[in-house]
């Protein structure tokens, strides 16, 4: 039996198919989920993919939070189920309040599309259980609104509670403004909730699993997720 990972399609989602494909490439079963269905089809984990849900007409992720499927996901997350938000999915998780902070326009005001280096900061999440903190992954980003912001108190709490999952860094792992593609506070590329089962990140691991088309920094994260959901309950 392989891990069943649901990927939600909202109107305007772009990366749902890549996410499903990445799950399958790494040995899991990808299960398509639909925004208007309040049904998670019994999956072991949920991915909110990148894109422009509902056109992002008001603000990234602002409308998706009201989708019928989101109530199910909130309950699933509250029960400890692994939920991964990628890019637009990260924005949605912040809008829903499952993660703190917000993603605002890149400091450069430009859309950024390139491969970045990420430093893994904690293994205490479903997607990093099999990764060593300090490990450096190559993964692409592509976003116009990826600057993570939060209050100083929230940022201090995230750091104190080991809830920063990824930071933008250089090839050697050095975190500095030089390697910060969007102005994110404290170089934050991804965070987790208190329990650790909900993770959001701006970079796209689903685009980084196939060596034929680019870097493979996403493989370790999908492998971790699949291992995590198949592990006996702890």
């Amino acid at each position: 039996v392989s891990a069943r990972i649901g990927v939600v399609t909202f109107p305007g989602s772009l990366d749902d198919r890549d996410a499903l494909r990445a799950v399958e490439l790494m040995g899991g079963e990808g299960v398509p989920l639909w925004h208007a269905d309040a049904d998670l089809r019994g999956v072991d984990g949920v991915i909110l993919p990148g894109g422009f849900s509902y056109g992002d007409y008001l603000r990234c992720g602002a409308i998706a939070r009201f989708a019928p499927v989101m109530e199910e996901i909130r309950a699933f997350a509250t029960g400890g189920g692994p939920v991964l938000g990628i890019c637009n999915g990260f924005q949605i998780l912040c809008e829903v309040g499952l993660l703190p902070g917000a993603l605002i326009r890149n400091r450069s005001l430009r859309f950024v599309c390139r491969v970045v280096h990420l430093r893994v900061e904690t293994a205490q999440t479903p997607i990093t259980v099999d990764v060593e903190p300090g490990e450096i992954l190559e993964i692409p980003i592509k976003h116009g609104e990826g600057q993570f912001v939060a209050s100083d108190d929230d940022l201090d709490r995230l750091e104190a509670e080991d809830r920063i999952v990824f930071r933008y860094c250089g090839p050697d792992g050095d975190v500095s403004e030089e390697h910060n593609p969007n102005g994110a506070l404290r170089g934050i590329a991804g965070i987790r909730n208190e329990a650790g089962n909900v993770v959001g990140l701006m970079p796209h691991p689903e685009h980084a699993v196939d060596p034929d088309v680019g870097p493979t920094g996403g493989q370790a994260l999908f492998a971790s997720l699949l291992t995590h959901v198949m592990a006996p309950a702890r």
Partner: protein
Amino acid sequence: VRFSVEVLVTLKPGLADPQGKAVEGALPTLGWTNVAARLLSNPVIEDSRILEVREAQHT
């Protein structure tokens, strides 16, 4: 002298207004207050206030 200016930007008549449609669709369930405080603004990083509520001239 310093001035404080509030600017009202509107679409010209006849243009598609997807943002407006989204707000219109959300009003029955959310109401004005929630549309202002939860839909049009992100309470994590933004404050909002309703300046005026008046009857629309046309639909």
